[in-house]
């Protein structure tokens, strides 16, 4: 026998289910008066530094049908490439920008949309710069554990070509699933859960 490591097991994930809005965006689904506003709906104020952009898109199932009951969260650095987090040791991020957003996909069209700013460069673990990117997390009925992925920018071809995470994608044609369409200031990022265009999801 040896000593026990004494570590615990992570609580297992379970699907967010069809009524995720009740808990996470109650005003969106008509439960008014409990919270003043749904969390994560307003990311940017007049004082926030950086280039204003919109990021919109859909989450599509294996038949190409948009999910109308999904919830998408994003997490990103500020315009200078700093995260508004106690784990950010490189400096103080823009205090007017939390970097976190949440949006339910539309009950009719399945669209999500974030009004945010373009993030700056942040370093990879070895110090190489990563190309500007936004972290995505997707939950919905039928998704047993939240899906992590990233959106990169189509107008950053040079930075994307040197991005340490994108360089790890073995099948190079799949890199395109992580790069938004559109152009500044309106980017479009569709997330494909399955099929030929299946988005590269991350175990990170």
């Amino acid at each position: 026998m040896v000593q026990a490591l004494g570590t615990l097991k992570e609580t297992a994930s379970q699907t967010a289910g069809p009524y995720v809005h009740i808990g996470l965006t109650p005003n969106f689904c008509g439960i008014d008066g409990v919270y003043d506003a749904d969390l994560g709906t307003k990311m940017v104020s007049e004082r926030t530094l950086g280039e204003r952009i919109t990021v919109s898109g859909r989450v599509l199932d294996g038949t190409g049908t948009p999910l109308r009951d999904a919830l998408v969260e994003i997490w990103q650095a500020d315009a200078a490439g700093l995260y508004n987090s106690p784990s950010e040791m490189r400096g103080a991020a823009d205090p007017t920008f939390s970097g976190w957003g949440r949006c339910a996909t539309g009950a009719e069209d399945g669209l999500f949309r974030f009004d945010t700013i373009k993030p700056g460069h942040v370093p990879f673990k070895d110090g190489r710069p990563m190309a500007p990117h936004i972290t995505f997390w997707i939950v919905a009925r039928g998704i047993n554990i939240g899906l992590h992925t990233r959106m990169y920018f189509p107008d950053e071809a040079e930075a994307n070509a040197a991005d340490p995470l994108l360089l790890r994608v073995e099948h190079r044609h799949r890199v395109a699933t992580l790069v938004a369409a559109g152009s500044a200031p309106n980017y479009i990022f569709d997330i494909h859960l399955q099929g030929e265009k299946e988005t590269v999801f991350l175990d990170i």
Partner: protein
Amino acid sequence: MSDRANRKPETGAFFPRDRNWHAPALTPGYKTSVLRSPQKALLSLDGTISEITGPVFGHSMLGELDNDLIHNFAKPGESAIGERIIVHGRVLDERGRAVPGALLEFWQANAGGRYRHKKESYLAALDPNFGGCGRTITDDDGFYSFRTIKPGPYPWPNGVNDWRPAHIHFSVFGHGFAQRLITQMYFEGDPMIWKCPIVNTIADRRAIEQLIAPLDWANTIPMDARAYKFDIVLRGRRSTMFENRMEGN
């Protein structure tokens, strides 16, 4: 947040997720997963600063009734119908450390098993005094609690006669976005847990048992509400000394 402020900054990457402990993406017994499950391998890599950081939520954002589902949607002087309960516990990480400042959001059906949602079609009645959502933030030692009514079980379209056991949905933020978790809490002694196709997406019985809250008799309030204890474990993270130094660190 004082405890967190006094700690050394947490800059280590998170322990890899045990993908055999969690449900796989494709679980045909839960039919909706069939067309919504990625089929290609995930791209695995050690967390970067984009994953080891995460948003912070302050206690000041909470309203007085946010952790009281019995009253936060009820008309003045009225309350939700159902078995009054307190749900409480701690948020820990895999190293057993408390996770202070963790935002928990929860949602559930009413005592009759009916959700307040326009897509809900179950014939059970709505409770005009029950909305079904609440939230709280863990204290310096990782503790949380809220009041609610025990949700009812309900039927759902999957197999011809599938029912969900009574459950409460939880959404949890830790200190890094890689810890983001949504799960469900079940109630001790419910025989329906083991019949549920969503519960059974998880293969390891111990992982299911970790989702079942025991009745906590010691913390039950006489003449008021029974208590259930539900601890939540988030991914642990390596201490900074095991990390390569980041640029500028």
